[in-house]
């Protein structure tokens, strides 16, 4: 319409906001924190993930066949950046190839658990009633089981193949995305835009797929991503206990397990270095995921 008339003598008041206040304002701090987290996380994770992805093309010694004359060399030995194990196998190569296994299992597991979780959570949240009862009780039962023991049991029964381990980790992890999805769906379901879709006569699965899931997906995806760290840790724990992918294929847990007794006699690198790799990946994924979650939450709040 028309502009408001300000008294002419009193044009634009200068801003009282100092640079320092702006820097320390809640909004700026939160943005900064999430940016720092995302970068720090990305760097940590990249340090591990990038070389692992390139393991096939890098000029690395064979991770399975050792050179007998080069046993138990410490890190920074010529030709062996991270040293070798008692069988003369290059540690860097074993860590990188082992990482491929761990990452593969981890990624497949979270994709699977994400899918199961979103589907289960959506139907539980939207349909309610006995579907919700079924899913929620299954969820709770799953979460109350001791994770590692359960995994060990399944692997003992069905053998330690990549498929079994992936499946087992996925089944262990589906409750978390399911619970979040269910909660988010419960909220969205009450909103009038969902009622509008119902008034159009859209069938329920379509409403869930077309209207509800796209609006909750960013938040759920962040949580699924964060599960990668847990999946990798689970896989490493399994291989450490001997229930992972079997020798001679390298796995992080397996390398650590093999190097355990040697640790006391001074061969520290077999335990520490794979451990550092695991730690870097887990910390990186957690930081990155945390930063992403902050970003997603703020975008959602801002677009409201």
């Amino acid at each position, binding site marked *: 319409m028309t502009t408001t008339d300000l008294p002419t003598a009193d044009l634009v008041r200068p801003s009282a906001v100092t640079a320092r206040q702006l820097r320390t304002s809640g909004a700026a701090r939160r943005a900064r924190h999430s940016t720092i987290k995302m970068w720090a996380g990305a760097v940590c994770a990249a340090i591990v993930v990038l070389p692992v992805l390139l393991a096939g093309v890098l000029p690395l010694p064979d991770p399975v066949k050792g050179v007998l004359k080069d046993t138990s060399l410490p890190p920074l030995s010529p030709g062996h950046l991270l040293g070798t194990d008692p069988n003369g196998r290059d540690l860097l190569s074993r860590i990188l190839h082992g990482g491929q296994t761990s990452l593969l299992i981890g990624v497949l597991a979270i994709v699977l658990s994400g899918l199961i979780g979103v589907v289960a959570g959506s139907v539980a949240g939207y349909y309610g009633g006995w579907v919700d009862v079924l899913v929620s009780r299954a969820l709770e039962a799953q979460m109350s089981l001791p994770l590692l023991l359960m995994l060990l049991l399944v692997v003992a029964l069905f053998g330690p193949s990549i498929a079994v381990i992936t499946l087992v980790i996925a089944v262990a992890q589906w409750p978390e995305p399911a619970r979040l999805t269910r909660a988010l769906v419960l909220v969205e379901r009450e909103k009038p835009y969902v009622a509008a879709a119902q*008034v*159009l*006569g859209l069938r329920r699965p379509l409403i869930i797929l077309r209207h509800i899931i796209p609006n909750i997906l960013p938040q759920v995806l962040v949580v699924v991503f964060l599960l990668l760290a847990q999946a990798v840790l689970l896989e490493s724990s399994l291989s450490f206990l001997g229930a992972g992918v079997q020798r001679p294929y390298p796995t992080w847990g397996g390398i650590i397990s093999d190097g355990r007794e040697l640790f006391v006699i001074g061969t520290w690198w077999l335990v520490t270095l794979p451990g550092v790799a695991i730690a870097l990946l887990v910390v990186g994924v957690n930081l990155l995921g945390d930063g992403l979650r902050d970003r997603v939450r703020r975008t959602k709040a*801002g677009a409201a």
Partner: protein
Amino acid sequence: MSNETPTRQDAPLLDVSGLVIEYRRDGESFRAVDDVSFSVARGGCLAVVGESGSGKSTIARALVRLVKPTSGSIMFDGTDLATLPERQLRPVRHRIQMVFQDPYGSLDPHLTAEQVVAEPMAVRGERDAARRRARAAELLDSVGLPTSALQRKPHEFSGGQRQRIGIARALASDPDLLVLDEATSALDVSVQAAVLAILARLRVEQGLTYLFISHNLGVVKAISDDVLVLRAGKVVERGTTEQVLSAPAEPYTRRLRRSALEPGLMTGRKPREVVRAIAAARIAEHDESVTA
């Protein structure tokens, strides 16, 4: 379609009879709508007025089948919607559409305005994307929004604009009856006036029938022909807008009317000078200073 009788032009478009809607909660049943009957003529506008708990919103939701009636009939152009099974209801749904109260939740946040308005057409089988887009642009234009609005998402619009998109979406189904559930209650007064004008114009232009749910008597007067007053699920009074608002018969309606504050008409008020004198006396008496 079964149980459809041939319609006469002067028969009411909507004829609700003995409507009862009960909810169960913790084993107790609660009657949100208790034996309500009313009818709306084709092209007319009936306002349903009441406070919270009156059942007005429940009736609105029942008309679009968001809630199932416990008993009673909802005759819409010869068909009883109350008992119609879902499969038979689906092809008729497009004829009754709803405009919702909350502009900030009634549009899917991840869709563009065009997608929101085009969806009803796609649901009815319009496969040609170009035709959907053209009609969407047309509809948005009819509610006063420019073509640049098409590609924007809901969060880029103000409350009043979002309500207009909601109206355009409702019209995209080519309905006969629009149920407006407090459609202007969440809007600023200046925006409300604009949206009411749009609604009044569209009713005439498109030959629509309105059921207007509201608690705001001024808005009701501006747009409706007839009024139904509800309280605790029961009908208290009914009549033309003129009758009910200018000469209400029932005590409850009079109470509603009395509580409607109209700035332009209010004259005098409690003597402020008295209040001020008391304040002055009190301060002189206590000489109050705030203690830390």
